[in-house]
């Protein structure tokens, strides 16, 4: 202790104290939040699920989406959070179980991140959002048989590819690697995305993605598209590095830097007089 006191005027003292304080705060916070998590035991009864969902919603979502999910519209016209009434369980499952919601900070796009809520909590939130508009509950979470792509014939896979190129490739790239939209927005990669999540994205049109409802893109069409996307994941790269499969930009960059660099190096070697 005396040794510590003796060093209190050291130029590192302020930084050290700050560091200790920050670590302590962070630790206390994570202990507190994990204690909250432990309280949220999985329930099966729907009414208690709605109750639990409401509680979670008020804690984690209501700041932006309003206390009753009605949205938060500022007087100047900006939307802090859109209304969630009638968005459906599929939208909640997509946004929350991929970690896109709750949003870490407002920006051009809500990025995918580690989910905050457990699957039970997501189900509770979905039940609560559905309970807000019983007359028009919005799209439900698809059942596993809807996105089961294991029994597709080669013909159906080929149709999936045609549908993918007609409807998805403009934003998500021909190889499903995603791509840029305007003003900082982007279409995320489709590689390693769960079939349920892909289905829900088509069904609900999250953020700037348009909606592809089951009426104009039938369940079997969505199945074929998912099967095609999954077949893209296993495509081999006979040339080695796939360079992100982003097309001519990365390939051109490689040739301009590595290829031209090599040629310049050889030209310099030829030109230098031998010793």
């Amino acid at each position, binding site marked *: 202790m005396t040794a510590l006191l003796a060093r209190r005027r050291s130029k590192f003292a302020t930084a050290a104290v700050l560091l200790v304080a920050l670590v302590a705060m962070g630790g206390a916070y994570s202990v507190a939040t994990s204690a909250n998590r432990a309280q949220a035991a999985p329930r099966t009864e729907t009414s208690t699920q709605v109750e639990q969902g409401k509680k979670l919603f008020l804690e984690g979502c209501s700041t932006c989406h309003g206390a009753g999910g009605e949205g938060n519209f500022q007087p100047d016209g900006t939307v802090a959070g859109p209304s969630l009434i009638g968005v459906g369980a599929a939208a909640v499952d997509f946004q929350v179980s991929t970690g896109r919601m709750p949003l870490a900070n407002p920006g051009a796009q809500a990025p995918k991140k580690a989910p905050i809520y457990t699957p039970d909590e997501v189900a509770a939130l979905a039940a609560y959002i559905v309970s807000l508009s019983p007359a028009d509950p919005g799209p439900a979470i698809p059942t596993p048989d809807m996105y089961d792509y294991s029994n597709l014939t080669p013909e159906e896979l080929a*149709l999936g590819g*045609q*549908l993918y190129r*007609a*409807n998805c490739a*403009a*934003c998500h790239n021909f190889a499903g690697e995603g*791509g840029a*939209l*305007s003003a900082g*927005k982007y279409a995320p990669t489709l590689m390693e995305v769960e079939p349920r999540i892909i289905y829900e994205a088509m069904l609900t*049109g999250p*953020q*700037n*993605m*348009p*909606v*592809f*409802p089951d*009426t*104009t*893109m*039938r369940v079997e*069409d969505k199945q074929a598209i998912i099967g095609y996307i999954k077949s893209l994941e296993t495509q*081999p*790269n*006979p*040339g*080695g*590095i*796939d360079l992100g499969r982003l097309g001519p930009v990365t390939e051109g960059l490689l040739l301009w830097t590595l290829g031209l660099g090599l040629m310049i190096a050889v030209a310099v*070697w*030829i030109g230098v*007089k*031998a*010793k």
Partner: protein
Amino acid sequence: MSIEQSPHSEDLPPHVPRRADTDPRAAKRAERQVGLLFIASSLATVGFVAAYVFISTEDLLDLPFFGNVSTSNLALGLLMAVALFAIGAGAIHWAKKLMSDVEVINERHPEGSDEESRAAALAEYERGRDESGFARRPFIRNSLLLSLALAGIPAVVLLRDLGPLPGNALRHTMWTEDMRILTAETLQPIRPEDLEIGTLVSGVPEGIDLVLEEEGNLNELAKAPVILVRMDPEDIKAEQGPADDPWGYEGILCFSKICTHVGCPISLYEQQTHHLLCPCHQSTFDLTDAANVIFGPAARALPQLAISVDTDGYLVARGDFSQPVGPSFWERG
């Protein structure tokens, strides 16, 4: 021309001999290096043939960082690179280390021929003119000129095979009144209530499959595709068509899918901004404002297709596009 003969050789910096010039062991070493490069090239060539014969194209090799690589491709590429590069590298190394590197000045000489050669050439030409009678027999000369002039005509006639000229084909698509709009690829008719707000549908005209089969080409499919979007009617600022009878239907708008810049299929639709972007050159159309161009190289708004609903409740076109779809062309006006 050697250094002794050059009048300017005293301007050069003094010649510095290389190690291989003075040290026989260094020369021997350089000789060995050059020879080994050529032998490496020979071995790589033999290896290339062996790799082609013995390595299955199915084999995959797991390399760090590169991932799974086709063993055959990798071996063929590397061996051919060594085979070619080592020949060049050996030649350069040889020239740099062992061949003479004494500095030499190569004097320029006048580029024109001397008077005597020029006079001889002129005399030869005149003798040919007189002996052939080219100037003396105008009938032969003129008939020859005629036949040469006509010889180019078959090439012009053959250009016709590039045709026929497109005629009206660029100005019209197969859309007609009451033709149903079907989903692309799956060819299902569409009801307005199928489209919730924010929906995007790629559409084609009914019967497109029969037309493609009949014509044996994709010309109609290249012109006719459309996209359907549905937005909140309050978001729509302007539509194409007369103000009292706009071409949309209850917030459903139908536009040509062919970009007016160079004709890429355009379906990068941002549901919240209602901007439609072309993935080729980022032309951006504002679908709330009659699909006018707000960014990028496209010169014209996307043509809107007037739509309605038939007696069975399916979305149909009210006729063809009112202007040519796709990129500009010379006669478009």
